[in-house]
């Protein structure tokens, strides 16, 4: 019973996560991968399932309540995912700009948690130009100017 409840909570939360992601990481002509390219929902699922139970429940509650109640922030009724992507984006923007602390907190949490998933996809990292000096020894490791130390020897030790 408990397991079934958790499964349905997960489904609703993932619908909410997908709805927020679609609005925040749309297809565009700027070369940045979209929510679809970044496989957001599947990766969010594995993140949720890796989290310890208390944190998982917190995030599931966040996205499930967004999915079920988020439409209430816009003048339309129904599930958040049924609003147009443009409208969903406006809802998140409005939440983030809200002078009411809990609403702002909610808006920021939506942006932060979805961008954690977005910004960790390899295609997005490639788009940013990220590479690792340990994978390419020496690459980009420009030594600091040799006289740098003279500015204040031992200032930090």
């Amino acid at each position, binding site marked *: 019973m408990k397991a079934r409840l958790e499964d349905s909570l997960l489904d609703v939360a993932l619908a909410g996560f997908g709805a927020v992601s679609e609005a925040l990481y749309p297809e565009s002509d700027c070369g940045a991968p979209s929510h679809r390219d970044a496989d957001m929902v599947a990766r969010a699922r594995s993140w949720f399932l890796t989290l310890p139970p208390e944190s998982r429940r917190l995030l599931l509650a966040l996205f499930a309540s967004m999915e079920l109640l988020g439409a209430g922030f816009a003048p339309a009724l129904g599930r958040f995912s049924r609003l147009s992507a443009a409208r969903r984006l406006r809802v998140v923007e409005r939440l983030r700009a809200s002078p009411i602390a809990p609403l702002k907190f909610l808006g920021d949490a939506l942006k932060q948690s979805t961008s954690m998933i977005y910004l960790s996809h390899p295609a997005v990292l490639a788009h940013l130009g990220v590479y690792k000096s340990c994978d390419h020894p020496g690459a980009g490791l420009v030594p600091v100017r040799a006289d740098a130390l003279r500015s204040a020897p031992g200032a930090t*030790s």
Partner: protein
Amino acid sequence: MIAGLEDVRSGYDVDCDVVVVGSGPGGAVAAANFAEAGLRTIVVEAGPVVRPEDMTRAAPLFLARYYWEGGLRMVAGDAPGPAMGGRCVGGSSVVNSAIMLKLPQWVREIWSREDGLGPLLDGAELDRAFERVFRACRVAPTPLAVMGRRNEIVQRALSHQRVPNGPLPRAVHGCEGCADCITGCHEGRKQSVDRSHLREPAERGAIDVMTCSHVDRVDLRGGRAVGVSGHVVDPVTWRRGGRFRVRAKRVVLAAGAAHTPVILLRSGISGRGLVGGTLTAHISVGAFAIMDEVVDPWVGATQGWGAISPDIRGLKYEALWAAPSLIGVNWGGVGEPWLRELGDMKHAAVVALVYRANAWGRVRVGLGGGPRLSLRVPTADVHTLMRGLKVAVDGFLGVGARYVSAGMTGVPERFGTPREAEALLDRRIRPRQVKMTFNHLFGSCRISADPRRGPVGLDGGVRGVDGVYVMDGALFPSGSAVNPQATIMALSDVLSRRLAGLAA
């Protein structure tokens, strides 16, 4: 021996001379000293060993597995913000930037004056402890060769503002400058305490480390410690395993400033309200500069360069980087405009400001039995922090930044000129407008000669019970003003050597 999940899954009942709860900087040093003194020592650690093959650079997954609350732990209060902490063998030393600095003399004086710590801090004993710790952790200034442009730009920005600066001393050996410290050192270069203090004694059988074992309480009989008990947790499925018990006459709590008070409170030890009652933290903000030049901020030692403010006592600047999926989450707006700006990230340089504020609060036992943290950050301290931030912003602008952002609300999103950055000096700024982090927590079980100020006496013993000691960041009477790991280790070294009867 290091006992993994399969060794402990169904629970256990063992005995030893001294049980150390927590394998972070405080616990590892204490355990190594007890073992050196020939005491049978068991370390009980809630988290697993982080093996290089289990490491992933996908930060959300790494945090979910190896950080408390999956990396989502928060401090509540007037400036809510994250308070991260490692949950693995080695504690936060596995995931931190390995900066190692000695406790400044002026903080030693405050601790001596306000809490009577002179007998611990004034002689040469603490200096020798720092030396031992620095040797074991191979501390050295970050080599110039692994700085990368990001650290160099921070160096230029600080010099522009005439803030004396230099390479930060770190506990690393052969750092490759991959800027990935926050998800563990894939290359095994960081000298986290699992390497520097636990590995060798565990391999030769002088210490047993019981992993995946969450201590619930200290077991007491007639006001004396007789051991600890708790339950096994599978670090992958989070399922509970069997119960365990470690019998010992001496219990050393080193579960960190968030968890040590929780274990005491759950054991019925409240120290007349002092346990958990004096939580404090350094407050921290970041300044993100976008330069004209390509910086490739993901290249170069995570926090290789820094400075101690000459004008604001207790304020530090440190170059910073972390996985884009962590450092980028507060970046700019949302939607397509944000996607268009993402290309700017390769032009970014970041400096973090860390300030010894007068932020005080409490650790309570939360609903799930874990810590619930809250802090009050004085507005005046936030204004001081903003003065420091203005220096950093001006420094970046002075060396050619296109713009600098602090991710705050109520001030312009971006500062393009020093004049625009004067908004940071507005006296109407309130703590909740600032995006703060609290990764340096301490003080929740303060050590003090005065029993009205702290529940822990100068021998590290918890007052009112026999055989229970604290040896971690919870001890600090107030902020250390510099990164705390070295001081936690040195204090733990002094206290544990005394307790074990080793030469100081």
